[in-house]
């Protein structure tokens, strides 16, 4: 399933509302990088509020998206990680240290605005 990517000024917004299978995660990675290239968006917010679990594969894909977008010059903020998901990720041994995070979509956009991405 394709996850929609919305453009808001110089930002891209992604909200993952589906049960994320491996293919959809990889598809999102490709689609998002392509969209960054097309729109020259300076920042991306990926909202994870609806996800009730993130396993090591999805975490790896999300981490890769952050690094890959960074290489292209676009800053990614992950938002809305649920308490249960944060606990599970750390117990799994995954800390997503490279990723910028924010408590919700609004704060995620603020972080990007503060770093000059409008």
């Amino acid at each position: 399933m394709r996850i929609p990517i919305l453009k808001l000024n110089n930002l891209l917004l992604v909200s993952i509302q589906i049960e994320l299978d491996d293919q959809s995660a990889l598809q999102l990675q490709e689609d998002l990088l392509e969209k960054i290239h097309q729109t020259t968006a300076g920042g991306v917010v990926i909202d994870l509020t609806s996800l009730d679990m993130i396993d090591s594969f999805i975490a790896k894909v999300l981490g890769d998206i952050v690094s890959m977008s960074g290489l292209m010059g676009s800053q990614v903020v992950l938002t809305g990680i649920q308490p249960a998901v944060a606990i599970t990720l750390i117990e799994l041994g995954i800390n997503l240290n490279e990723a910028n995070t924010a408590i919700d979509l609004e704060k995620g956009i603020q972080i990007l605005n503060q770093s000059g991405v409008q």
Partner: protein
Amino acid sequence: MTSNMNIPIICEWDIVAARQAGRDAARKLSFSIVDQARITTAISELARNIYLYALPGNIILEQIEEQNKIGLKITAVDKGPGIKDIKLALEDGYTTSGGLGAGVPGVKRLMDDFSIDSVVGEGTKITAVKWLKK
């Protein structure tokens, strides 16, 4: 959960199916939200392990009872190549697939009980239990 569930792992989509079955089972047994996430994640890791290394296999979910405790038992069985060095497979960061290497050692931390049996050339059986807190 009145009966046990047995989810065959044949294609990538079966990882999602196993995860969903685990989520439903954990909810029915009234596990906390955090334990539901632990159980679902553990199942996802075990199912992916089968998919990556040891097709075909099965994820079996059972409600168990022991000394007045209720638990959810996950069994992952496969007829894959087996694990040569179980100690190494349980080390954080060890991977042969380019993943994070968090899967199997992570499952051990997410669940209460964990055991692994593997015979090279025959297959692997991993069992993991989460007990319901009273």
